[in-house]
């Protein structure tokens, strides 16, 4: 009995822990119900965030605790993370592929392309210039884009009038 809490009625640490454990066993359901309450969880999160910002001692203690946990469960965490990445990247890719196959997506894509072509947008003209070439879209100067836009406009108008 060498260690005492200064503010807990001069109880030694071991006695205080026993008292807490007894209280927990007697009021387990009540405590669990309280901690499961979303409002309680929200308040706890806010308090944690506040302490992390304003209490350096709390922050250091929390960081040390997290580090201890990471070091203790290194392999399990690694396996869990790898499994999570594998599962979610695969599902993400599948979702994307499935989305691209939908008629709605194809229609939207088609509409987008038509809009680009009708308005002679920069990206459309740049794509026309970069077609069948090693040039990247970003490598084309804007002045060349302006000239190409005019040329395309003339060609289209001439074809319409013919």
């Amino acid at each position, binding site marked *: 009995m060498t260690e005492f809490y200064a503010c807990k009625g001069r109880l030694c640490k071991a006695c205080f822990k026993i008292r807490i454990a007894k209280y927990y066993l007697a009021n387990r359901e009540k405590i669990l119900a309280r901690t499961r309450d979303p409002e309680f969880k929200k308040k706890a999160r806010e308090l944690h965030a506040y302490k992390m910002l304003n209490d350096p001692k709390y922050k250091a203690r929390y960081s040390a605790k997290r580090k201890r946990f990471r070091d203790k469960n290194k392999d399990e965490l690694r396996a869990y993370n790898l499994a999570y990445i594998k599962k979610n990247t695969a599902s993400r890719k599948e979702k994307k592929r499935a989305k691209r196959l939908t008629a709605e997506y194809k229609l939207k894509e088609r509409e987008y392309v038509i809009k680009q072509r009708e308005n002679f947008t920069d990206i459309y003209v740049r794509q026309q210039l970069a077609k069948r070439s090693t040039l990247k879209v970003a490598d*084309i*100067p804007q002045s060349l*884009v302006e*000239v190409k836009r005019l040329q395309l406009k003339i060609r289209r108008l001439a074809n319409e009038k013919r």
Partner: protein
Amino acid sequence: MKSVNTLRHELAEIFDDLRNGTIKTKEAGELANVAGKMINSAKVQLEYYALRKEVPTLKFLGDDKLNGDS
């Protein structure tokens, strides 16, 4: 026609003339075709510089910085 700006002005005039009907469609088409050739030659020069990983210095393009004014 020494620079891209001159070419642009010329093409703008041709476009207006074509819309107003003061120039024949065939003639406008041919002029647009010639402009296309000039644009393509500038493009080939740009490709050359890009492949050599050099900064292009083309008189035809004037003082335009690459993609800087886009």
